[in-house]
């Protein structure tokens, strides 16, 4: 796409949006963030008021020893006496860093949950059914500490300029420093009593996030897509790096991602193998997406989409969704070393394309907009309901099409940082559900089965750290790991939430989701969920069909009786084959795509049951 057509498409998008807002002006309720029971919860460090709907807080694990300091929270003094005391303390010890102990992203491997932290990472045993048990703490400061795990290897993102190769804190000073490390660290975690850093792959813009990509040609090898968002390092510090706009410097380290290859048998040799120009246009212009700039306008050409914030890969469909600051993009990753952009999307309501999550069928992507970077209160009643929200996009012929915005449907206080953040699919068959972190907006589950009408179906929230005063805290990531929601709370530790049945989610739907298990989960490396044929899965589809007012009562009663027999272990006296035929016939008549899909899936289960 060249600049002219980009601008044309902007105009088109603006036109569409303006007419959309005119249309929605007739239904103003959709545009206002409502106040509800979680809007004014009482504040407290570990005793804030709580709200839960459709889920319950099962465990709350306080921060690990060495990973909490009240003063490390973002805590401005409230009166002159506190201010004077603080100034005295700072005079005595100028080394001081709020947010430096924040919990961040998570990964799961072999029953161990790894929780990243700005100061390192912690590992918890989650196999015992009770509260997660801390089994290892590692201190290695250097940035937000995005973590991924494969077997005995843990990968960690490092972006801060202060970070050092040796995990030390004698700040790497100066413009050029041989001890500085910004990139992806690799740790050997095979022995929890002797973790060891085995490699540190230096990159030009550090590592804000990274994504593991399996190598289709070799199971003992994998790729890492690294997204660096910081300034470009000096060439004297890292020879592969040069800065500048591409028209002045075609080799600029801006406008690319890093592809790192890891031989799992020799991880110490991990190295960058390509830095693809995934934002280039058809004419090879490196700055092919939102670069902008026209003669006569008082501005330089401004780098815009010159980085991704996060990339989610879905190897089974050969695609990756990139949330790349100014655009959402779709990449063909059939050759992972050389990803190729196949679609891009822009929207004037999206401030910063931050993360992406595919639907299980791979026909939709939820992009999040981290408007303002996550440290501000952006879910207040007066904040626009389409800013800092999710954008649900459909994939049609490998092309992204924006369908709807969805923002946390609860006004939050000015004392709570809140914006859309990291989430993951909840594997309920027949529905597209995503559990998601909204910082101090809490944890929320969005149903985006109909991409034009996303809706919240469950939520958990706490009040602020302290009433009337914003401290940066809240859920960084909320992920579905083997039957429970784990929420990494920036300041308060680790929460475990369990779904409970209600009007929006049945017991069978929850049971079907809880039965889905995996030994290794890195949420940005999506894998296709395939449900076993069980009474719970069949019941889940049936419950969904019965929620619709137009459900065929005779058919659903027949299916219910058959499921009840199946669950009770009785023989198939109702005739699975006949039920399958009736469901197939109903599916053929059904005009709604969602109901048709559920009828077809249910027919498939009974067809297989009939043998």
């Amino acid at each position, binding site marked *: 796409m060249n600049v002219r057509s980009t*601008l044309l498409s*902007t*105009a088109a998008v*603006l036109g569409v949006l*303006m007419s959309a807002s005119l249309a929605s002006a007739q239904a103003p309720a959709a545009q206002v963030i409502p106040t509800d029971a979680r809007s004014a919860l009482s504040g407290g460090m570990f005793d804030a008021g709580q709200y839960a709907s459709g889920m319950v807080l099962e465990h709350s694990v306080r921060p690990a*020893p*060495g*990973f909490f300091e009240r003063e*490390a929270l*973002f*805590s*401005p*003094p409230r009166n002159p006496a506190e201010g004077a005391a*603080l100034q005295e303390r*700072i005079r005595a010890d*100028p*080394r001081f*860093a709020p*947010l*430096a102990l924040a919990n961040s992203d998570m990964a799961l491997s072999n029953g161990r949950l790894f929780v990243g932290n*700005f100061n*390192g990472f912690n590992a918890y045993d989650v196999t015992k059914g009770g509260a997660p048990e*801390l*089994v*290892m703490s*590692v*201190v290695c400061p250097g940035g937000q500490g995005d973590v991924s795990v494969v077997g005995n290897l843990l990968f960690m993102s490092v972006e*801060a*300029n*202060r970070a050092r190769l040796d*995990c*030390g*804190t004698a*700040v790497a*000073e*100066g*413009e050029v420093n041989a001890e500085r490390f910004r990139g992806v660290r690799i*740790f050997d975690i095979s022995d929890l009593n002797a*973790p*060891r*850093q085995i490699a540190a792959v230096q990159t030009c813009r550090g590592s804000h996030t990274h994504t593991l990509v399996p190598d289709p040609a070799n199971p003992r090898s994998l790729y890492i897509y690294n997204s660096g*968002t910081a*300034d470009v390092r000096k060439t004297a510090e890292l020879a592969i790096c040069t800065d500048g706009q591409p028209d002045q410097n075609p080799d600029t380290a801006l406008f690319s991602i890093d592809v790192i290859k890891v031989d799992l048998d020799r991880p*110490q040799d991990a190295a960058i193998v390509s830095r693809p120009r995934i934002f280039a246009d058809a004419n090879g212009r490196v700055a092919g997406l939102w670069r*902008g700039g*026209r003669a006569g306008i*008082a*501005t330089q050409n401004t780098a*815009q989409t010159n980085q991704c914030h996060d990339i989610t890969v879905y190897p089974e469909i050969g695609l990756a969704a990139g949330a790349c*600051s*100014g655009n959402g993009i779709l990449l063909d990753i059939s050759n992972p070393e050389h990803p190729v952009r196949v679609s891009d999307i822009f929207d*004037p309501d999206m*401030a910063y394309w931050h993360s992406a999550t595919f639907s299980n069928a791979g026909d939709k992507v939820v992009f999040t907009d981290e*408007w*303002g*970077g996550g440290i*501000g*209160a*952006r879910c207040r009643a007066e904040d626009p309901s389409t*800013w800092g929200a999710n954008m649900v996009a459909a994939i049609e012929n490998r092309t992204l099409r924006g369908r709807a915005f969805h923002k946390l449907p609860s006004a939050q206080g000015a004392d709570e940082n809140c914006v859309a953040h990291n989430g993951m699919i909840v594997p309920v068959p027949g529905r597209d559900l995503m559990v998601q972190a909204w910082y101090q907006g809490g944890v929320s589950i969005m149903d985006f089965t109909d991409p034009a009408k996303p809706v919240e179906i469950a939520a958990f929230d706490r009040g602020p750290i302290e009433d009337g005063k914003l401290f940066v805290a809240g859920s960084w990531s909320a992920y579905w790991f083997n039957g429970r929601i784990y929420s990494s709370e920036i300041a308060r530790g680790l929460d475990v939430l369990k779904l409970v049945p209600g009007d929006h989610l049945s017991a069978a739907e929850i049971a079907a989701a809880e039965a889905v298990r995996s030994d290794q989960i890195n949420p940005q490396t999506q894998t296709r969920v395939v449900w076993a044929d069980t009474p719970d899965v069949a019941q889940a589809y049936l419950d969904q069909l019965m929620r619709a007012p137009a459900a065929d009562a005779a058919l659903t009663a027949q299916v219910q009786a058959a499921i009840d027999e199946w669950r009770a272990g009785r023989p198939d006296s109702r005739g699975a084959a006949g039920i399958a035929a009736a469901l197939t016939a109903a599916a053929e008549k059904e005009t709604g795509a969602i109901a048709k899909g559920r009828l077809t899936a249910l027919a498939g289960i009974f067809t297989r049951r009939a043998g």
Partner: protein
Amino acid sequence: MTALPALLLAALIAAQAPTSPPIFQPGAPGAAARIITPGEAVALSRSTFTAADVAFMQHMIVHHAQAVEMVELLETRGASPAVKLLGRRIALSQQAEMDLMRDWLTLRGQPLEMPGMSGHDHHAGHAMPAGETPVMPGMLSPKQMQTLAAASGPAFDRLFLQGMIQHHQGALDMVAGLMATPGAAEDTLLSDFTNSVVADQSTEILRMQSILSDL
């Protein structure tokens, strides 16, 4: 006393005491980790801030305040709904960032203004004597602000967008300047903040360029 009750007692104490695994600080690639105390772990998290960091925050507050003033003018003098919508969004994010910067400075016992700076209120363009020199990189000069304040309708929208693009580009230049200062921007929150400034302002510049081209 035999050894057995003592061992049992020790086991009992161990079971009752809150136990947690050791905390490791790894070494450079290939080197062994060492075990550290929780106090050392917290100490390792702390980073310093420099005079350049403080000056950056003080300057950026002044810089952001001008954007808010420009949006105040936009409310009464602008014409395009798309420009107004964007302007309100800019004001919201600039105000939130100003709060954050003030808190950052207060938290570190630093004054909100540089010595010798007369306070951001005095930078209000329409209240200043005419002059050609902007106060910070990219800021509209007092004369530019006066021209803006005198315009209205589509002409205002155009001047507003051009001025705000220049203004935002200045913020990017200020971040670039800070990043080029040895030892600066080590502070985690400040580093996060500068990243979000770059992201926000770059996005807004592009959006403004796009709207400008459609006016």
